[in-house]
């Protein structure tokens, strides 16, 4: 059952991506906007059902496979987008979020999904919470990254005085900068809680032993701490904040995927 739902989800997100890109390129402000939102909404509903039925079929929560992590990441990303859309009406954000969500979902679908025995050390409750929080943190940073890209595009359009369709669709710089800050704060809060729970759990099991993922996560946490601090004290806002959000997210992607490819350790996704 869940495999059928997941196929429907993929089709919906695919249509959502296409229509959101069409919306981005279309001349008129309202073309494709309804359709893209509907497909995304329906896709998200099926995605939710897929995750729940998957959990029921397996009989346990699964987040330790990289494929599961990707799946959960895509789901939370779309959820945050839908929340932002309903709260701030920044429809064009979908044109940036949906392609990323689709890629995450597809990569989750092609990655191995072998059944693991549910009784290893990796299946304690704190592991799930730790992983979920870390992934939600990544979602926050992903939104900040996308909003940063949007900021740089809009800034370029304003500077070069190109008042085209894209200019009309993108929100104002202030709104984008504000959203950037909110997304970083959200991501940072999740990451902080995730790291604390991880450290606490690890202390009980194996202890802190400076594996590459831990080092990278700490580095990222420190980076975003400096970013947030810099905004308040020395004015790292606007264009600078957009660049920082982009750099930060590259680091996040590396810490999730790159670390696994280079060092295969106990802390890796399976």
């Amino acid at each position, binding site marked *: 059952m869940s495999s059928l739902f997941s196929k429907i989800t993929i089709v919906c997100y695919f249509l959502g991506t296409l229509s959101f890109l069409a919306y981005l390129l279309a001349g008129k402000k309202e073309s494709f906007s309804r359709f893209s939102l509907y497909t995304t909404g329906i896709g998200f509903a099926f995605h939710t059902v897929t995750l729940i039925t998957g959990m029921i079929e397996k009989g346990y929560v699964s987040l330790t496979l990289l494929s599961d992590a990707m799946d959960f990441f895509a789901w939370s990303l779309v959820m945050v987008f839908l929340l932002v859309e309903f709260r701030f009406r920044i429809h064009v954000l979908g044109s940036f979020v949906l392609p990323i969500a689709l890629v995450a979902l597809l990569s989750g679908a092609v990655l191995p999904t072998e059944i693991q025995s549910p009784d290893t050390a990796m299946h304690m409750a704190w592991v799930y919470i730790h992983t979920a929080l870390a992934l939600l943190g990544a979602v926050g940073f992903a939104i900040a990254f996308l909003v940063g890209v949007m900021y740089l595009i809009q800034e370029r359009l304003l500077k070069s005085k190109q008042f085209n369709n894209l200019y009309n669709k993108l929100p*104002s710089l202030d709104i984008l900068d504000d959203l950037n800050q909110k997304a970083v704060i959200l991501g940072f809060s999740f990451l902080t809680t995730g790291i604390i729970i991880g450290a606490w759990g690890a202390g009980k099991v194996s202890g802190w032993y400076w594996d590459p993922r831990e080092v990278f996560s700490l580095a990222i946490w420190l980076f975003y701490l400096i970013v947030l601090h810099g905004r308040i004290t020395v004015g790292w806002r606007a264009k600078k904040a957009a660049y920082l959000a982009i750099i930060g997210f590259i680091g996040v992607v590396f810490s999730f995927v790159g670390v696994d490819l280079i060092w295969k350790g106990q802390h890796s996704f399976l």
Partner: protein
Amino acid sequence: MDIIVVGLNHRTAPIEIREKLSISDAQLREALIRLKSCHGIDEGVILSTCNRVEVCAVVQQVQTGFQRIKEFFEDHHTGLSPEEWNASLYLYSADEAIRHLFRVASSLDSMVIGEPQVLGQLKDAFDTAMHQKATGIILNKVFRKAISVAKRVRTETKIAENAVSISFAAVELAKKVFGRLEGKEALLVGAGEMAELAVRHLVDNGVGKVMITTRNFDNAIDLAKRFNGIPLRLEEFPRYLAESDILICSTGASHYVITEEHIRQAIQRRKNRPVFLIDISVPRNIDPHVNRIDNVFLYDIDDLQLIVESNLEGRQKEALKAEEIVSEELTAMNKWLKSLEVVPTITALRTKADEIRRVELNKFLSKLGGLTPEQRETIEGLAASIVNKLLHSPLVVLKDEARSENGALYADAVRRLFNLDKDLPHHPHRASSEKEDDADPGEEKV
């Protein structure tokens, strides 16, 4: 019974003529009473704005109606000889008159297409006419329809979207940088009509604090009073640059009043909060190199002009869609107007009665069965006699009222009482009257 429009607007008459013929609010009531008292004019509305003066009326005869309204204008203003403004008048009747009204209400006939004021002015003109009892069943319906057409045009097309004035274009640009202007601070360097308008728009859109500096400090004080702002001396304004989110520069100076160095320092003190600069002076007063600094957005008069032009083009495109809506609504309006004609109403009433008589007779004759031809004839005679007697007095009244100003009212009532609009008969008279409308001489502008 016909609808006509006689008037002139910014395209047909220069301001010298328009101002002489215009009817002020104070004169409007008296003018409406005079219009209504003209022989052959059943209903009337007078619309007088700075861009147009026109009279819309329901008349019994188109040509005499035109003549009466021309005389009405002559009476209203004696200082000009009719030859001077006669050529500027446009005369519309029937379809063209209604189309014109719809277009005026929808701001398709305005100097700046899509401007919102004319609809309010038209509403006021209609309200005043209604209070003076100068309107009746027809103009009430036509004007209400014109207002709803205008609203439809506004919601279904983008005719009123985007700024078409320099000062408003500046506000829209500012909103693309700041999102909301609430709580932002603006600094006006210099004066001038366009700059003041821009500040006025900014304040209307939420800008909280306005600082004003001019070469002559007294002018700054005067201006500051108007915008509830703060006057600054010209030599002290650079100190306030860092505080202002929006800067409008419009001085007569022939050099750069604001240099790259000024803005660099300001941005540093602002901790990178974006700043929005508008330079409406020619020669320019803000060094164009300022735009190279991060988080600084500088626009000059040409940039704003470009926005206005492209927005105007956009409105022209939307106007085509609006014209389609107007045509669509015109068809619906015509259908209703046609229904108000007395002769087709009489025909429809007769047809309906005959139809009922025929159906009921057939039903009962087949039930009774085995009747002799004489009996059958008697029953048919009875049915015909009842129908004719019942219809006699309504038909007599309708015929009597056909030429009176209440004809439309009676026709409307009869149609509703007898439910005649369900299936309007295609009477030959209607077809011919439509042809007459098409060939009406009043269509062309005179």
